[in-house]
Each structure stands twice: as C-alpha cells, then as structure tokens.
C-alpha cells in the first residue's frame, strides 16, 4: 500500500513528533507522521500551558497543538491516521506495520509519548468513566458541585486540581509523600485556594461506590479511612508507549527508550523524542527540543555525516 520508501517516518503527533516533522520538512525530507488520534497528543488535553516560552499569560494546549500541526503541514509533513503496530529491520530500512499496511522508513523518529499511569487499586478500572478520570479538561464539567479527590503531587496533579475548582465544590489532593513535588508557583496557587485541601503521606487503597464513585479508601499513619468523593482524578505519572517496538530497542530501568543526547537509540536509524525517552525533565518545551534534535540526527544519518 505504501510502496514508496520514506526518508523519515515519525511515530506520534504530539509536540515532539510535530516539531520533528517541522524540522524534517524544512530539511526537505517529506516526513510522514503516523498518528491515530488527534495531532497534539497529551498537549491537546492541557487546559492552559503557562510555562511554554513566548506565551505570557499562557496558551490553551489545544491551540498550541493545532499551531504545531499547521506548521508541520506548511513544510510538507503528511499525516496518516493510523497507529504503528510493530517494526522490523529489513536491511538498512525499518518496516513499520500499520493497519493500512507496511511503511518502509530509512529513519524512524519514535515520538509515541506516554499514557497515564494507573494506580492499580481495586475499583479504579471498574469506575473508569463513572467517576474515575485521568483528564480534568475532558471530564471536569461532569463534576459540578461535587467533592473531588485528585491523586498525585506533581505539576499535573496540582494543575488539574486548580482546573477542577472551576466546577467542583471541593478538591482534595492526595499525595503519598509528605510534601508536593509540583513547582513552587503552582503550589502557592493551590495553597491559597480556599476550596483545595491536602492529605499527605496517604496512599489510595481502593476506589469505592455503587453505580458511581462514592469515595476512596485511604491508608496513612492513622490507619485506614474513607474519603467521600464524587470523582477521582488520577495523576501519578505516565507510562511510555513502546509496545510496538518489541525488544528491538534498549530501555532504561523505568521502561523509557534509552537515547543519547542526539536522540539516537540502540537501533541504527531509530531516534527517540519526547516522553517516550529517558530524560530529566518532561515538559512540552523539552519534547519540542527533542523533536528538533531528532530531525537533525535523522538528516545526518541519511546523508552519512
């Protein structure tokens, strides 16, 4: 179906993949982006991104995502709405299997991102869509005037807790450590909010309810307790999407792709950008930086420099 061999195939249309496509397009490499969903990835789900340089006052995640996609198209990136299911090496090429057939790539930029990590407690799966959510921007309006629990203590958890105060009667942030990990500016805003409360050093052991979530069972130094909540929003980290690579690319201890500073991985011609790779800071700004570097690395690989 795709008889033509592509110079660059980009897996994933989030900020890393889109920026890789902008740069690869400008290098004249006519990138093909495989993105089964909506360009923008997790960025599209961020209510407002406040720390992306150049946008004082912030910008809606969906708008920034759409601008990145438009810019990629401007430089000739093509999009195919299909997922990468598997890869295999064939000589110097990487064949990418998709539901639409195989795509032959001289270089592959893996920017497949990550999905929300599950807590792995009883009730979490059962109540998905009935009170358990991983996306405040998506589901916040269903929790008008309810008491909500947000699980996690990083930037995402605190940002989403703040976002949820627009709808909820109260928001309780539950964190397993004794202090938040979120950035200072977010912490200050959350502490100052009259309808956000905190439970520290508390572990969620179950999500409970009938037809809908009614609350969560917690364990802390005082023992077990029940916190009534009409909704539970979970932000306890992310899991990289690497299943389609099989065991052909080295991972680090946490399952992220091991990649050098120039995004090269253990598989020649395969570069990793964004949340899928191991790195010290996971932000849109580092994802786009990875994407640019990956496009350059792919270009050099193709020209043999």
């Amino acid at each position, binding site marked *: 179906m795709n008889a033509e061999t592509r110079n660059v195939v980009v897996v994933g249309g989030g900020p890393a993949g889109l920026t890789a496509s902008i740069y690869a397009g400008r290098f004249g490499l006519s990138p093909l982006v495989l993105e089964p969903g909506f360009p923008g990835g997790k960025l599209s789900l961020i209510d407002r991104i406040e720390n992306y340089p150049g946008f004082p006052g912030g910008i809606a995640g969906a708008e920034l995502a759409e601008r990145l996609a438009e810019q990629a198209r401007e430089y000739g990136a093509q999009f195919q709405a299909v997922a990468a299911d598997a890869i295999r090496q064939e000589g110097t090429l990487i064949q990418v299997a998709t539901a639409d057939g195989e795509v032959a790539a001289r270089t592959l930029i893996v920017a497949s991102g990550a999905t929300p990590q599950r807590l792995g407690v009883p009730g979490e799966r059962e109540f998905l869509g*009935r009170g358990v959510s991983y996306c405040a*921007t998506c589901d916040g309006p269903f929790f008008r005037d309810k008491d909500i629990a947000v699980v996690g203590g990083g930037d995402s958890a605190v940002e989403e807790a703040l976002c949820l105060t627009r709808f909820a009667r109260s928001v309780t942030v539950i964190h397993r450590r004794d202090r938040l990990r979120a950035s200072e500016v977010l912490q200050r805003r959350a502490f100052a909010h009259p309808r956000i409360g905190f439970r520290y050093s508390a572990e969620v052991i179950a999500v409970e309810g009938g037809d809908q979530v009614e609350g969560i069972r917690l364990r802390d130094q005082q023992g077990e307790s029940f916190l009534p909540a009409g909704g539970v929003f979970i932000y306890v980290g992310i899991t990289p999407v690497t299943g389609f690579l099989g065991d052909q690319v080295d991972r680090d201890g946490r399952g992220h792709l091991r990649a050098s500073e120039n995004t090269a991985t253990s598989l020649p011609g395969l570069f990793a950008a964004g949340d899928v790779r191991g790195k010290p800071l996971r932000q849109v700004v580092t994802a786009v930086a990875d994407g640019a570097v990956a496009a350059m690395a792919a270009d050099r690989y193709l020209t043999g420099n």
Partner: protein
Amino acid sequence: MGSLQAVTDATFAGEVLEAKGPVLVDFWAPWCPPCRMLAPQLEAFAAEQGDRIKVLKLNTDDNPAMSRKYGVQSIPTMVLFEDGQEKQRIVGVVNQEELKRRLGLSG
C-alpha cells in the same frame, strides 16, 4: 462531528430505546479534545457497518438528562443499546479496529 446523526434528550426514547436493532450512542461535547479524536474513527465505523448498527451522537452539554440517567461522567463514552437495554460501554478514545473488536464484530 460530521456525518453522524444526533440524538437528544427528547428523541432518545424513540431513536434509541425503541429502536429495532443495536444502537451505539456516542456521548460527547464540543470542548472535549478526545471526542474530536474519536469522531473520524466512529464515522468510518458507522459507514462500514451501514444498517447493521445505528450510530448516534449525543451532546452532553445540551442533553444533560440522558447523560445523567446513564451515569456518563467521562467523555467520550459510547454505550451500545439493544432492546432498550445497555449492553456495553466503552470509555475513552478507541480506533475503528479496536471498536469492532470490543463490540465483537471483527474477524
């Protein structure tokens, strides 16, 4: 959301509960990015299934009664109805193949 027919609180009984065959209802809202992700997959699914499954979309902002009645608290949520009863529920974005697999229609 392009080609799918809409159902409302007012038309739900007639269009969904009293329908002859299976009806898949997509609960969505215009402000929900994942709902926009799902839309093309669902439209392709609906086109492929033709008369075998009726696919309708329900805007949860404009039709809170049915969203509440079926306890939809996350969108997109798709609910499959047969003979007025909920048979299956799929929460979140799935692609066309996955949708068929979950509804037992693939292969």
